[in-house]
């Protein structure tokens, strides 16, 4: 079978099992768009800005575990995609981005809409390719998917010069079934001794902690993590990226850790004597001040990427480089073979201590206020969706509240930009999720600043009938910025406020959707119910929340885990503080 490069690309995507490509046309990809027009296997989702394409593909990937696929034109199309590529890179999300490039003969001549996409994206991709030979196109696409989805996943860019897709040049097509790269071998074998040593250390613990992150979600190892945690009976905390990897409503779960983690999670980390880190990368939002991080703990670290081990926290007692799922299985087996049991007496005392920390109720807030508390909105969202929605978010306070007050019991339900912290992520990501799971409830928790960064995707939502529910926690502030300014800059609110916030109800109506403004706490629940009852409409709830609410607990920059700022300082009474 002889095909043109454009046809080869589409056929390769089809053979790879791609359902959707998220894209936006332009000169360098016109041959490809013509091929898209003439096939049906791969559906094209036309976004309104290339950043939206990357976030939508990313949301799709996070919800399904399958790679997201993006198609953009050269030059501005390609540069617009970069933010979304970097977002996926920081959170290790599998994605394949096809970018058009000017024709090979004019590369390097500052041709119209030429930009060195391979050069620009090099620092924020797992790998990238420039296609120089159409006979290698199918193989390159195969390699791109292989690299993006194996090992530590990540985005891969394939830059395709226009002449590679010309309709008049056809070559034989065969999509490789398997591919291997001599320079890339993502499969790792874990030595039995390491597993044994880890189990010995775990069983010797008196104040153990399990600290699990996004790697468990990426590695589809939630079931194994849950078994492992239950067998040991140890407390477990999740990172922002790991939420849902372990059921948050379970009694062994002590909440998220880190900058906005719970009091109990951070105190337990600080006091712990043995920590097992599973698919988590000791991010600075988690560790706080490095010298004060977990001073008493011996640490076991499981990660598929050797570079994650001893990157920030150097004192790793037992490094295990491997894929979480098989490693957890090995650990479980080894635990069962081992005659020793966890130290029951020590563990009881440890749980008692943790319960005391829990009693501080670090997530409690004023439930009697006349103002709409953002935390209350998220709790109501949880109830209305029975805890079973896919929740995407943007970046800011609303993101932290969603993470804190919506306990996720399943992986891949909480979809947010953790590593890059990209405002504008939430809405397009929600569209990607809804395409993957049309029957599921999909909510986008956002803020009035973040939503405006990709608001144009409301138009995409209409065209492709992706009825998501947008929960805008409208505090008329860039709340997260304002909070830092309140704490660290004596409340000098420099540019963290916009006095020309649009009338979102009118705006979303103009886009063809339903908008509802909510001013009173008692309107929140009915509005949410109404929104989720409108199964086939995108609904925007513009919720006027308490303007000056802060996210607590908070570990300020340069502080350790035991040094948290709480809503109600320890030793003071909640009533007094709230009066």
């Amino acid at each position, binding site marked *: 079978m002889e095909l043109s490069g454009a046809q080869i690309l589409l056929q390769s995507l089809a053979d790879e099992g791609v359902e959707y490509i998220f894209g936006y046309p332009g000169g360098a990809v016109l041959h490809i768009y013509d091929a898209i027009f003439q096939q049906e296997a791969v559906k094209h989702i036309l976004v309104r800005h290339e950043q939206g394409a990357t976030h939508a593909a990313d949301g799709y990937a996070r919800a399904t575990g399958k790679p997201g696929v993006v198609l953009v034109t050269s030059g501005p199309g390609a540069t617009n995609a970069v933010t979304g590529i970097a977002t996926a890179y920081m959170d290790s999300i599998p994605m394949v981005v096809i970018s058009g490039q000017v024709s090979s003969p004019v590369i390097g001549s500052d041709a119209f809409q030429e930009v060195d996409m391979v050069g620009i994206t090099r620092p924020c991709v797992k*790998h990238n390719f*420039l296609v120089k030979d159409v006979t290698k196109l199918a193989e390159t696409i195969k390699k791109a998917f292989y690299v993006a989805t194996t090992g530590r996943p990540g985005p891969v860019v394939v830059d395709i010069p226009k002449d590679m897709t010309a309709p008049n040049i056809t070559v034989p097509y065969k999509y490789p079934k398997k591919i291997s790269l001599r320079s890339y071998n993502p499969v790792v074998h874990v030595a039995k001794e390491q597993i044994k040593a880890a189990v010995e250390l775990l069983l010797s613990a008196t104040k153990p902690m399990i600290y699990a992150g996004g790697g468990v979600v990426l590695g589809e190892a939630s079931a194994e993590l849950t078994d492992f945690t239950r067998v040991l009976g140890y407390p477990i905390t999740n990172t922002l990226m790991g939420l849902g990897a372990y059921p948050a409503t379970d009694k062994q779960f002590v909440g998220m850790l880190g900058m906005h983690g719970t009091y109990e999670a951070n105190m337990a980390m600080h006091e712990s004597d043995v920590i097992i880190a599973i698919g988590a990368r000791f991010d600075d939002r988690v560790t706080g001040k490095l010298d004060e991080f977990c001073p008493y703990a011996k640490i076991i670290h499981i990660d598929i990427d050797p570079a994650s081990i001893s990157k920030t926290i150097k004192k790793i007692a037992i490094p295990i480089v491997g894929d979480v799922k098989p490693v957890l299985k090995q650990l479980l087996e080894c635990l069962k073979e081992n005659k020793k049991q966890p130290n029951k007496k020590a563990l009881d005392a440890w749980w008692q201590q943790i319960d005391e920390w829990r009693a501080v109720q670090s997530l409690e807030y004023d439930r009697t206020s006349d103002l709409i508390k953002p935390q209350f909105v998220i709790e109501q969202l949880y109830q209305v969706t029975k805890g079973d929605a896919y929740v995407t978010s943007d970046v800011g306070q609303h993101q932290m509240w969603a993470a804190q007050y919506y306990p996720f019991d399943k992986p891949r339900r909480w979809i947010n930009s953790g590593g890059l912290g990209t405002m504008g992520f939430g809405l397009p990501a929600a569209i990607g999720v809804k395409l993957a799971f049309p029957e599921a409830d999909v909510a986008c928790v956002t803020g009035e600043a973040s939503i405006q960064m990709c608001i144009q995707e409301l138009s995409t939502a209409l065209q492709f009938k992706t009825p998501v529910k947008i929960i805008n926690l409208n505090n008329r502030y860039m709340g997260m910025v304002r909070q830092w300014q309140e704490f660290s800059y004596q409340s000098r609110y420099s540019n963290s406020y916009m006095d020309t916030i649009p009338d979102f109800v009118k705006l979303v109506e103009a886009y063809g959707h339903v908008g509802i403004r909510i001013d009173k706490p008692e309107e929140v629940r009915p509005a949410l119910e109404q929104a989720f009852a409108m199964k086939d409409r995108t609904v925007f709830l513009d919720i006027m929340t308490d303007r000056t609410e802060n996210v607590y607990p908070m570990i300020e920059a340069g502080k350790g885990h035991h040094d948290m700022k709480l809503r109600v300082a320890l030793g003071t009474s909640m009533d007094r503080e709230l009066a």
Partner: protein
Amino acid sequence: MKHIISILIENEAGALSRVAGLFSARGYNIESLTVAVTEDPSLSRMTLVTRGSEDVIAQIIKQLNKLIDVVKLIDLADSPHIERELMMVKIKTTEQTRNDLRSVVDIFRGRILDVTANSYVVEMTGSSEKLDAFTSAINSDSIIEVVRSGATGISRGEQGLHL
């Protein structure tokens, strides 16, 4: 400490910039970097000299290994090895200095490649330290130009870095 990292990398356009970009993006320093194709034309050999604490070097090696184009690498500092660098120095000469200079060149086992009435071009190979020693042994005012290749290296013994 100084480390010489020897890398086998796919001989692809852009492979060099992946390595160089990694160093600048992560703030590692490169003292020198040499690249040339190997006996297998699909592979390039890169020799990179860097300095850093053990932690930093360990991260550098992990991050280099993560680059998809990197096939294999070794840190030569881990085992006995030979280090060589090529240097060419253009030196001002006069009637009076010429003989002295020639004997210094001899002591360092250098060669004189070019002679004019007022200058020599001296070629020398050796460890980077030896080359440093030569340039400090001659009058710095007389040096017109120094060209150094950067270090390359190879391990001692039968073991080699290959596929």
